[in-house]
């Protein structure tokens, strides 16, 4: 097979990748986007297999079949609430693949007695650093999301100093290898540092900051692929990798903006450590609580209800019951909309996927900017499993850790209902004054069970 075939395959593949992301801009064309992406990937793989340099196929096919056999069940068996975990895991595999290729390239050149230095080595260093650190960081993120690893930020004295020092040593080793052929121990040491750095990077990050972190890891994985493109002088890799890097970067910026925090604060701020003082305070103040019956009759007589879902809804798997509630209210002529905060859940857009899973049509899901002015006109704001994103302290309390974060203005609604397990503060450990307002009714219980009770009550009122 001559060279023009795979070259053409790569060029069309690159176009497919670009179109794939373009079509993802609307739910109407999104599935076409996936198809384009798959086709682009297929072209890339087939084109590569047909290149003259590739002479042995046996092991490649075995590896592909094994990879498919592991990947497909992962994608089909994971429940939708676990999409963040799956994405983290998938990042880990992809990043590790990129890192291993970088390592192989390095040792190829060593074996030829011609160790790489200069520009190609810069690319290998970046590829390996990002690849290995993304791999371990993603595994850690997976652990935190799956709650195998404690989700609270883990901090120790001098943490940032140690991280910085490790990073500095890795940089020195990297520069050394670029400048001149380094001793044999340098590259393995560099790999070890990268792996370690990935773990340490995630330790101080709390569960609620995972949307930013996953987006950032996504960006790193793309950057590693782009760096590989420089190593192999392969422009398809550069295009696909940098599109991916740009995508992850934008998403993490959006997440940071949605919390009014800087990158540095998310990565090194150890946000959301337990604050026992505020928890104690929470016990002391009186709140109004209500039964499912009360809730049902208030909802029934409302004209417009805005539901604000949060991670708690995902944990309780309450999205299906929530749809039953929305349907039941809809039949009574109540307009039910959903307000989605950008950082609700554990990855960008997490809530939308869960509500879509429960068959809630996507034209009922509204972004924060589009629905915030409507709260003042709505009769009931129903908060289910969300906490910090509806805390009015973010607007006025300069001492609050979340001051300045854009929030959903549920406190402007006529009545606020909050379904919550108990008065324990949420992930950030910040007390929420919303719960003590006169117009707020606390509905204590499991989100799924409580929503189910309301639905039952509504049914009985028929």
């Amino acid at each position, binding site marked *: 097979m001559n060279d023009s075939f795979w070259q053409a395959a790569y060029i069309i593949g690159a176009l497919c990748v670009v179109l794939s992301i373009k079509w993802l801009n*609307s739910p109407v064309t999104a599935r076409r986007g996936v198809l384009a992406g798959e086709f682009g990937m297929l072209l890339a793989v087939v084109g590569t297999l047909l290149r003259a340099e590739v002479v042995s196929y046996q092991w490649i096919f075995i590896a592909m079949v094994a990879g498919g056999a592991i990947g497909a069940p*992962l994608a089909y068996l994971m429940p939708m609430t676990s*999409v963040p975990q799956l994405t983290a895991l998938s990042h880990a595999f992809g990043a590790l693949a990129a890192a291993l290729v970088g390592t192989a390239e390095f040792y190829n050149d060593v074996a030829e007695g011609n160790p790489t230095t200069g520009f190609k080595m810069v690319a290998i260093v970046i590829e390996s650093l990002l690849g290995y650190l993304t791999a371990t960081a993603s595994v850690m993120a997976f652990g935190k999301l799956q709650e195998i690893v404690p989700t609270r930020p883990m901090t120790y004295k001098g943490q940032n100093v140690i991280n910085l020092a490790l990073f500095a040593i890795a940089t020195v080793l990297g520069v050394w290898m670029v400048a001149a052929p380094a001793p044999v121990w340098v590259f393995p040491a560099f790999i070890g540092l990268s792996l370690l750095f990935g773990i340490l990077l995630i330790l101080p990050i709390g569960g609620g900051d995972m949307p930013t972190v996953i987006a950032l890891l*996504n960006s790193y994985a793309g950057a590693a692929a782009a760096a590989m493109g420089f190593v192999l002088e392969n422009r398809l890799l550069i295009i696909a990798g940098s599109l991916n890097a740009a995508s992850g970067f934008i998403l993490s910026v959006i997440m940071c903006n949605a919390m009014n925090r800087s990158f540095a604060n998310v990565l090194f701020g150890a946000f959301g450590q337990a604050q026992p003082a505020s928890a104690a305070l929470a016990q002391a103040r009186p709140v109004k609580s209500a039964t499912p019956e009360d809730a049902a009759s208030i909802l029934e007589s409302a004209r417009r209800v805005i539901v604000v879902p949060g991670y708690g809804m995902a944990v309780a798997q309450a999205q299906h019951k929530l749809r039953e509630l929305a349907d039941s209210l809809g039949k009574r002529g109540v307009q039910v909309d959903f307000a989605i905060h950008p950082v609700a859940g554990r990855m960008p857009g997490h809530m939308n996927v869960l509500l879509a899973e429960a068959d809630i049509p996507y034209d009922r899901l509204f972004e924060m900017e589009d629905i915030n002015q409507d709260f003042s006109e709505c009769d009931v704001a129903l908060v289910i499993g969300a906490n910090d994103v509806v805390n009015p302290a973010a607007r006025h309390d300069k001492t609050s850790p979340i001051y300045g974060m854009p929030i959903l203005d549920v406190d402007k609604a006529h009545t606020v209902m909050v379904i919550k397990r108990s008065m324990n503060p949420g992930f950030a450990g910040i007390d929420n004054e919303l719960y003590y307002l006169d117009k707020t009714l606390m509905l204590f219980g499991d989100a799924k069970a409580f929503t189910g009770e309301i639905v039952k009550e509504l049914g009985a009122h028929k």
Partner: protein
Amino acid sequence: MTTEIEISLYVLVLAVPLGLELVRRVSPLLHTPLMSLTNAISAISVVGAILVSGAEGSPALSKTLGVIAVMFATINIVAGFLITDRMLKMFKKKEGSK
């Protein structure tokens, strides 16, 4: 004279702003599928893995690493695309279309 590296850098400086523009236009509604789709696309590194593991005369160490990389990248590709499609199938507009 234009070197290979120069061409690659040109591609990079064009691809990054293109990516930023494309992603900015994606509705927040679809941010999760966007992430899993780009996740699958980042496994384009499978190309490098195939080249390393299939090449003639590369040392056993590189070949082994390459084959493992092919497997890992394939997991990423398959899982990434399938979960994206599974999610997108659920997004419906009309009410009651079960």
